[in-house]
């Protein structure tokens, strides 16, 4: 592999696609520099100034309302725009791992803060993250911990914290679940700021939003907490939820489960024993440092092997966001914001329209952000593939390049693939979308370039649209294009 190919592999896995702009930038940093910049993203300026509240709409009383779908739209814009692609890729991973769905948690602001909890800990310490997410109102509501009270434990969270979040199924008893549930009793949430029945005025509401303080916060209710001794996985004590998190993170099952899942997300499914051994050791010795595990993944030979490179089925996010980033959609949309935008200035309609195409496409491909299908999140890999979802993937070419849109994304394609021969135009198209096709399929794309009007049509925006549309449609239909 050349250095450029290595950087592209990193951008596909630890980023959101290898767009030409990113590839050019990261290649200069070299492979190690790229790994460092992607994983150690705190030192990178994110380049995303948009507040989620810009997506809200005012109700009759002038109070901004934020629906889950608007939060999803905002997140999609962030995915398309961010200069910290790994931060979002990890947030997506944790959204799948600590899945919460808006089908039950319907309040946009609560979901927004849930995402911020995930994002804030995404490459941090796993124990800290587990403690934080266990106290997140969205999670508490999602797994009914607000009804988990002394004398009447609700086991929903207790079960999932072991089954899904830490050790994996089969490593604990029903008695452990009951005891863990007792430890989390009295962990609930409450509205912040204004008390009582009175609705806030728009000014009061916005003041609180500006402070960044969540509208709903974790609340410990001592009277509802069972302070008695518990027996959990062989340990005994007057444990509370934080103690349980400590116990669970210290288990050998967790040391294997969490790194294996990260490996699956970033490299390939079912890692070999020796890989898991290696990562479990990093997990334990670093004191559950996620960043250290990510470095260990990037530094594994297996990550760079033939089994890994361009062999992972693209998730709807991998597919859709990478296309959007290749086209520079995020920056183009943000440039339409008014320069003096306040956090409460509604985003221009012409920015929301194109964004909706991306959200809808991902939804139709089977990944509706903030609506994971079940407590265990989404199924990955080949589960993403069905005739219906593939139609949606191919159709994205038609949605994007239908012309007459508020956002011209065909223009950049035309500019990028203008060439003197159809072969060259095809090569440039593949380069633009980071596609590697075998020669037989390249020929098909080339035929599409010719059928759409040929290279002469590419010289002007007016005539280039059919070429761009047909050639990208055939490219998007190529099986290889669905792997990263």
């Amino acid at each position, binding site marked *: 592999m050349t250095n450029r190919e290595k950087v592209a592999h990193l951008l596909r896995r630890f980023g959101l696609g290898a767009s030409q702009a990113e590839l050019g930038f990261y290649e200069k940093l070299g492979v190690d520099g790229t790994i460092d910049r992607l994983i150690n993203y705190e030192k990178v300026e994110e380049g995303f100034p948009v507040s989620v509240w810009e997506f809200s709409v005012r109700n009759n009383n002038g109070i901004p309302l934020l629906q889950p779908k608007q939060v999803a739209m905002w997140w999609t814009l962030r995915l398309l725009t961010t200069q910290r692609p790994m931060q979002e890729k990890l947030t997506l991973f944790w959204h799948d791992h600590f899945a919460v769905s808006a089908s*039950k948690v319907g309040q946009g602001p609560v979901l927004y803060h849930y995402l911020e909890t995930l994002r804030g800990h995404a490459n941090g310490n796993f124990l800290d993250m587990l403690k934080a997410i266990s106290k997140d109102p969205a999670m508490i509501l999602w797994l009914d911990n607000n009804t988990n009270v002394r004398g009447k434990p609700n086991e929903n969270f207790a079960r999932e914290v072991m089954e899904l979040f830490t050790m994996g199924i089969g490593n604990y008893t029903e008695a452990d679940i009951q005891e863990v549930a007792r430890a989390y009793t009295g962990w609930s949430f409450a509205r912040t700021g204004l008390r009582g029945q009175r609705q806030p005025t728009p000014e009061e509401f916005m003041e609180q939003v500006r402070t960044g303080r969540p509208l709903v916060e974790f609340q410990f209710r001592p009277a509802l907490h069972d302070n008695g001794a518990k027996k959990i996985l062989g340990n005994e004590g007057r444990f509370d939820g934080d103690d349980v998190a400590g116990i669970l993170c210290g288990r050998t099952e967790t040391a294997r489960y969490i790194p294996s899942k990260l490996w699956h997300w970033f490299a390939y499914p079912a890692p070999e024993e020796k890989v898991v051994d290696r990562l479990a050791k990093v997990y334990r010795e670093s004191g559950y440092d996620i960043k250290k595990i990510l470095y260990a993944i990037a530094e594994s030979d297996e990550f760079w092997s033939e089994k890994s490179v361009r062999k992972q089925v693209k998730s709807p996010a991998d597919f859709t966001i990478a296309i959007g980033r290749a086209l520079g959609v995020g920056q183009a949309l943000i440039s339409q914001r008014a320069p003096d935008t306040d956090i409460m200035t509604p985003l221009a309609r012409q920015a929301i329209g194109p964004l909706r195409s991306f959200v809808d496409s991902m939804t139709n491909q089977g990944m509706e952000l903030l609506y994971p299908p079940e407590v265990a999140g989404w199924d990955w*890999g080949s589960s993403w593939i069905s005739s219906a979802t593939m*139609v949606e993937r191919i159709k994205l070419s038609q949605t994007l390049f239908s012309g007459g849109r508020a956002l011209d994304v065909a223009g950049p394609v035309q500019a990028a693939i203008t060439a003197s021969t159809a072969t060259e135009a095809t090569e440039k198209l593949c380069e633009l979308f980071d596609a590697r096709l075998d020669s037989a399929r390249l020929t098909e794309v080339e035929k599409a370039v010719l059928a759409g009007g040929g290279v002469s049509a590419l010289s002007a925006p007016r005539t280039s649209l059919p070429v761009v549309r*047909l050639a990208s449609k055939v490219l998007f239909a190529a099986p290889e294009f669905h792997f990263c």
Partner: protein
Amino acid sequence: MSDRITRRDLLRKSAIIAIGAAAPPWLASIAKADVIKLAAGRQIDPDNILVVCQLSGGNDGLNTVVPYANSAYYASRPVLALKEAEVLKIDAEYGLHPTMGGFKSLYEEKQAAIIQSVGYPNPDRSHFKSMEIWQTANPDGREQYGWLGRHLDYQMKSGSANPVVAIGLSRTKPDALKAKVASVPCFASLADIKAFVGDPDSERMLREVQGMDAYSSVDAETVRKANLTALDAMAELNKALDTYTPKMNYGTNQFGQGFKQIAHLIGTSPKTRVIYFAAGGFDTHSQQATQHSRLMQDFSDALKSFMDEMKALGKDGKVCVLVFSEFGRRVRENASAGTDHGAGAPMFVVGGKVQGGMYGEKPDLVNLDRGDVPWRVDFRQVYSTIVDQWMGGDSETLFGKKFEHLRIF
């Protein structure tokens, strides 16, 4: 004329036997066994079509099939109750929502079965969970595949399926259609198909770019197959869709557009056996009356137009429409002139061969299940009846056990 006893004869006879008190038990059991055997022996018309119409959000069953003679209904709903004078009476106790004239005429023609108090054990009041339960038909555990998906898989054992044997008219694939083997295409609208396939050149390119060679990777092969399934389905439909245009008057609302496309599919795609369609807006927590009224009218009018179209096509006897929602709504109205999530509710089965009438048990408005209509008929009884007696499938394989059939066919 054949003297072979037909399934329908048998069903009628067994119904009579069951009703007749004088029938000896052994005769009833033999008749019943024969019915099951015949059903399992594929004596079922292979052209039968099932249309599933999902009312998403939890339809208010009590304001759909209104218990106008029940004082508990009026006591619980001072604002939302529909008056005796306005409901469309279908018997001495029940009347349909005032806007459901179309549905009422289907009922009077004995083509509509109303099954009351349908639900499942330990009803879940979450949309998400309850919808999952209805679509996977497994209230007890997690089930990866849908009830129709499993049926299609089961049928694929006896040969390969046509690419358009089942179609979802929806943006996302409903859980009900998720299958292990069968690939079910879903389209947001039929117009999409024509736009997508485009000219023959474009279709050929989309096919050829799939390649002819054997792929080394299993996943790549999955992608290739999925693409070809979609292309096959669309190619088949693309040609066919031009051969017929629905003639009846359908509204521009979601039900009108949905049933018009279903009619279009049935009129043009002879191999399609299952069509799945979902309409939303039923989660009426506040100011329910106007919204629900509009939904009931849209639903009822569209269904009537659809059945008229089927009659005109001579297909009314080939079509069975199953209508369900993930739950009913709370008996007592809430403080916002709406209703909250409930449990038991009516289901409809409509078609030329359906024995119209009232089935199930009257909603019990006194002994409530946490404020809701208690379920008395397991929805899997309805599914099983349809799987075994309409689609020639095997409900026991799908649902893990036998459920008592309803005599709706």
